[in-house]
């Protein structure tokens, strides 16, 4: 009988350990680094726009991606949550002088955090399916809010 009280106290305290925290790191954004292969720092590289399959929205429209002296530019683009692959078309130059294409595939894991936190989709296993860029490396195949770079693209 002497075990009853301390045992009950331990069990009551342990009940606090069962609830999950609402720490959500899911995102459908891919973080890309564009790098110049040639160390030509004299010219700007201008993006006319970037289109993403599944949406009519145009990204980075009219932005100067590489300023004079820059060798690396960072972009953040969303993948299509309604598909297992997304195609990005990069239109370079003020008059769309050139177009480069990048297609990526990924898997989606549906995860319930809890009734109070909700349900989220985690994008994983990011892979390059096809590209017209010189070189594309997958640095981090998981799309999370804490990831620094997912893809490294060599121009």
């Amino acid at each position: 009988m002497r075990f009853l009280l301390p045992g009950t106290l331990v069990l009551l305290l342990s009940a606090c350990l069962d609830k999950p925290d609402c720490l959500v790191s899911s995102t459908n954004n891919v973080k890309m680094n564009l790098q110049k292969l040639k160390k030509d720092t004299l010219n700007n590289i201008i993006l006319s726009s970037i289109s993403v399959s599944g949406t009519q929205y145009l990204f980075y429209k009219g932005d100067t991606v590489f300023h004079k002296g820059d060798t690396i530019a960072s972009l953040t683009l969303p993948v299509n949550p309604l598909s297992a692959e997304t195609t990005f078309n990069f239109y370079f130059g003020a008059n769309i002088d050139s177009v480069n294409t990048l297609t990526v595939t990924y898997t989606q894991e549906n995860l319930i955090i809890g009734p109070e936190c909700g349900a989220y989709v985690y994008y994983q296993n990011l892979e390059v399916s096809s590209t017209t860029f010189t070189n594309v490396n997958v640095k981090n195949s998981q799309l999370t809010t804490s990831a620094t770079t997912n893809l490294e693209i060599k121009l």
Partner: protein
Amino acid sequence: MGCLLATILFAQDAGEPDSTRVRPKKPDSLKVKFYPRAFRFGTDVIPLINSRTQKTVSAWEINGDVDCGRYYFAVDYGGSKKNFDLSTGGTYQNDGTYWRAGMDVNFLMKDPDRNMFFVGFRYARASFSESATLIATDPYFGSIQKQVSNSVVNAGWQELTAGLRVKIWKEFWMGYTARLKFPASVSGDISLKTYDIPGFGLNGQGVTWGFNYQVFWRIPFTKQRKPVSKTS
């Protein structure tokens, strides 16, 4: 003559037992014989209370054990159904059954009423289905609604148990069981990562604790003798 006398004396000496060299016998009262003495069946009160007080859960569990002296063979069987809304929109449903089987060791053998403090282990398995509706709004792709489901999910895990069983009145018993649950292995959760496992709790939380409060009725197989009190 001397030889004959010695032979007679030797024969006499071999025939009579030496009372100073008899090994003391262990009293039968100290030996716990292994045989089934009684069957006890009951239910966990906590799922019944939760089913009454919470609209999102409906659960039940029945328990049974066989008293074999110091050792008790225990079996639990239960089911649960959960259905709740998600804060991000959508719903989650879960429906299945589970069982546990194992053994307990009683550490209160001297108690005349056979009250027990026990430590034991269980092996458990659950079989269930679950589904969810996920709703989200993306600024570029618009409103997204997904219906995902796992039709057959199986999970297995082990537990260490400890608890009390106390005789309240005649053959009516009450007690509690604390469970140290080791992480479950899950198969079949392809479309949706399993959130809740019937009989186990939330998936993916590592080692967790559980607690049951149970009521029992004991059915003895033989009539038990009441201990006779010695009066001087």
